[in-house]
Structures are given as C-alpha cells and as structure tokens.
C-alpha cells in the first residue's frame, strides 16, 4: 500500500468515525436501530455543499448540515415515539423521504466543490502535504467529538439517556422522560452523521446524492470492529474504540483492494462489509456455545 493510499484510508476512516459515534449512540446507547443515517449522510454533504457554493462561511455551512441531520433524526424518533411505529420502519421512511429531499436541496444529483473555500482551506499550503493535512485536521475534530460525547454521557442528562436505552421502565421510575431522550439522542446521532457527510463533501470536493448507500452498515462495522478489538472499560474508551474501528475498517478495505490475488473491485465493498458485519454478529454466539458446552 502506498503512503498516499494509506493516508487516504485513514482520512476516510476519520470521516466515518463521526458516523460510528452516531451509530454507537443510536444502536448501543439508546438501543434504537436507526437507518436514517443512510439519508442524513448525503443530507449533510448536500446541505454543506449547496451552502458553500452559495457563498456561506464553510463552518456555518457545516453547522447547517448538522442542524439538518438533527432534524432528520428527530423526525424519525418523533414518529416512532409519538405514534408507536417500529423504530426500524420509522427510520426507513425518513431515509426514503430524505432521498427526495436531498435531490431538492442539491437541485441535481451531484454538486462539485472545486476551488471553493472549505473548512480545510486555511490549512492547505502551509508546509504540510495536502494528503496529510486532511487526516490531521479530521483527527483534531474527531478527538474533540469523542471528548464532548463522552463528557455528555457522563453527565446527569447523558446518564438518563443511557438508562432510557438500558431499562426504560426504571428510567421513568427515576423521573426520566424517556420519549424526549430518545428524540434528543437520535437527533444528536444524526447530527454527527450529517457532520461526517459535510466533511466528506469538503475533503473530497463533491456531494453526491447516492453517497449514503450503506452508511449504516459501515457505521455498524466500525462499532463492532472497535468493540471486538477494545472490550469496553469506560464510556470514553468505548467511543474511542468506535473511532479506531472506523479507521481499521478502512485500512482493511484498502489492503484487500490492493491485494490483486483477491480480485476485488471497489464495487464489491458493500458485499464485503455486509459479510464482515454478519460474521462479527455470529461469532460471539459460537464463542458462547463453546463455553457453555
């Protein structure tokens, strides 16, 4: 693997680390399997790209993308909580709706960001090669996100959110308004996924309406790889493990694509990822079965 390919994989892994943290919040903390992310990733990319092309400050455009993602997540959770619709189904509905909404926002399937001012522009051309600036910049942002999310989950409010996912009846007996916590948590999760989309658009120079396909599976793969490699000790470590999982997953994919013997093409990625997630979901059962025997 060339160093260019290596840092490219790290960069992509760090972009998807936000997706992994978001998926960790919905799947693991809230026990709310949420497929909205397949729509909120391109939503974030599209919103940021359109706003930047329209002359917005790129940070403001990124914040707008996060707000849009939060709104999408809120819509899913609201429908699920308020009308008691199965979480998976509610999230699929939002995901499908977002495909149309994204096309409306972008006006066309693809928006290019060539020669536009992005959040990265101030850091280019300062002595460090571009392909190193990007992962470094992302690493700082990811570290910030990990610290903030971990601090939140250790606060009174965050603890109430974790209890909502772990034992809703107990949470209500402690005065936690579980419905509100589900809505807030899924909104936060999708805001992070939309942030990933916004950063993806700005590091790659385009937003594409189809870029969300399989986001949920990639996020899950990152969470599971992280959990397998770093069994959780504390909540901060569990979130950091999602980040590590995301980067390692991308490196593994890059490695597999580089091995010509495997004969893999980039388009085989979704199949390979689905099989990987399936495998990691099945393996613990075999381990349990073995120890029980």
């Amino acid at each position, binding site marked *: 693997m060339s160093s260019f390919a290596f840092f490219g994989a790290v960069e992509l892994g760090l972009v998807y680390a936000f997706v992994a943290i978001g998926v960790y919040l919905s799947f693991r903390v809230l026990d709310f399997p949420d497929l909205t992310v397949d729509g909120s990733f391109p939503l974030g990319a599209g919103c940021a790209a359109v706003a930047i092309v329209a002359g917005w400050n790129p940070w403001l455009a990124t914040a707008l993308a996060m707000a849009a993602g939060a709104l999408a997540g809120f819509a899913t959770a609201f429908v699920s909580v308020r009308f008691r619709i199965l979480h998976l189904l509610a999230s699929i509905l939002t995901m499908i709706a977002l495909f149309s909404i994204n096309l409306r926002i972008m006006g066309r399937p693809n928006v290019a960001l060539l020669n536009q001012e992005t959040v990265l522009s101030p850091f280019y051309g300062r002595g460090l090669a571009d392909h190193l600036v990007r992962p470094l910049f992302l690493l700082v942002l990811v570290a910030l996100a990990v610290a903030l999310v971990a601090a939140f989950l*250790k*606060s*009174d*409010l965050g603890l109430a959110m974790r209890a909502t996912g772990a034992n809703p009846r107990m*949470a209500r007996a402690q005065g936690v308004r579980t419905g509100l916590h589900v809505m807030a948590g899924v909104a936060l999760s999708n805001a992070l996924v939309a942030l990933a989309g916004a950063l993806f658009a700005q590091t790659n120079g385009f937003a594409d309406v189809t870029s969300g396909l399989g986001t949920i599976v990639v996020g899950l793969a990152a969470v599971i790889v992280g959990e397998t490699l770093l069994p959780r000790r504390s909540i901060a470590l569990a979130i950091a493990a999602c980040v590590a999982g995301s980067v390692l997953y991308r490196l593994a994919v890059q490695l597999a694509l580089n091995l010509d013997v495997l004969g893999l093409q980039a388009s085989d990625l979704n199949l390979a990822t689905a099989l990987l997630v399936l495998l990691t979901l099945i393996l613990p059962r075999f381990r349990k079965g073995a120890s029980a025997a």
Partner: protein
Amino acid sequence: MISVESLAVVFNKGTPLERRALRGVSLAVASGEFCCVIGSNGAGKSTLLGAIAGDVLPDSGRIVLAGRDVSRLPAEARAGLVARVFQDPLAGSCGALTIAENLALAAARGQRRGLAPALGRARAETIRTRVAELGIGLEDRLGVPMGSLSGGQRQALSLVMATLAPSSIVLLDEHTAALDPANAEFVLDLTRQLAERFSLTVLMVTHSMRQALDLGTRTLMLHEGEIVLDMTGAERASLTVEDLVERFRTARGQELAEDRLLVG
C-alpha cells in the same frame, strides 16, 4: 401524607375480559407510617401500587401525594414524590451501568437533569458512604457493572437508591419475593433500618403473613379490589398469624389450599 380517594381501575373495559382490579379504594397514610399490604393473587395489591406510581391510570378517583393531585400524571412526572423497589431485582436498576452510575441516576430522581457530571465529588462521596453502610463490601466495587451482582445485592442497592432522594411515599412491591431466605432476611432488615432512619412513609406488598404483622405500623388486606382489613396499634399488636389467616379465609370464603400465600 398520601391519600387515595375512591380509586377505581378497570382493565379491558367494555370487553368480555373486563376486570375490575380496584373497586373504589380509599386510603389515607400519614407521614412516617409503614403499611404492609397483603391479599391473594388478583386482589389488586400491585394495581394499587401501580396506580400510586403512575404506571396505571385510574378510571375514577383521586390520588393526592404531598398535597398534589397526581391522578393523571405519568410515572416520570411524579417520580419526585414516589420511590420504588420492584419485585424483579433486574427491573429496578440498569445492568449495563456501573453501581455508582445507577446510584447517581437515583440521586437525581425527580429533579431537573443538566450537563453537570453525574458523579461529581460531593455526590460520589455520598454514594460511597451510603454503599459502605450496607457492610457488604460493595463500596470498593462502585465501578463494576450492576449486571454482575447477585439479586440480593441488587435489591439492597435498590433500597439505597430509593432513599437517596426525598420522597413522600416508598413503594415496595414484594421486593424480597425473588430472593433466597438469607438474602430476603438481609433486605428486610435493611428495609426496617432505612424506614426508621429516614422516617419513610412506606407501602409494602408482601405474601408473608408474618412480615405483614412484624414489619411496620399498619396492616392492610385487599380482596377483590377492596380493602377488607385495616389494623393499627394495639388491635394489630394482638393479632396473630392464625387470626390473619382466619380473616383471610373469611374474606375469600374458600380454602387456601392452592394459594401461594405463605404462613410464616
């Protein structure tokens, strides 16, 4: 002070399965009173507790806690007034959270929750002290997930959790029924201690006649959704388990043979 006025709860109303779980129950419990509630299966004990906690909304009647009519409030909105320990040790705490986190969650029961660390220094210290008082060595394992503890340990901690924040009533729903005799005794002792120390107002459902007479200051018997016996003071003190069984039999008008009621 809590008062329940003409409380009626009907399940599956208007269907062939309609069941009147509570038929106009009225009850006033003074502050610091410890009531034991007995009755056969389906007598309405759990429904009464559920209605006070807010899990079950009444069809008619009122529930007033600390001067506030809470009849129509959901459970989470009256949690500041009601503390609970469930029968199932797994129900009252989060197995995935640590001991300290579970207690922190309970310490903020019914209060507005913000972004301050849940385990700030002062609260962590209180939690440590309260857990150490149990004398079962858990104060050194506060970072361990609740799920790794035994049922008895979890129920003991659930009792501590119920008394970390103030309440106007503590509801104990057969909280020792799922434990082995030694652990049940330990948790009962703890119940007695904590009730005395914090002058708790308690409503405890039990299947044990002995507990219903030995513990607390008042004994209530429910039968088919109505209170059929209510005793305190000297009258209660002179009551034996045999008397209670007799009263119970009269109320039911049938043999106790297949009931899971325990004598002793």
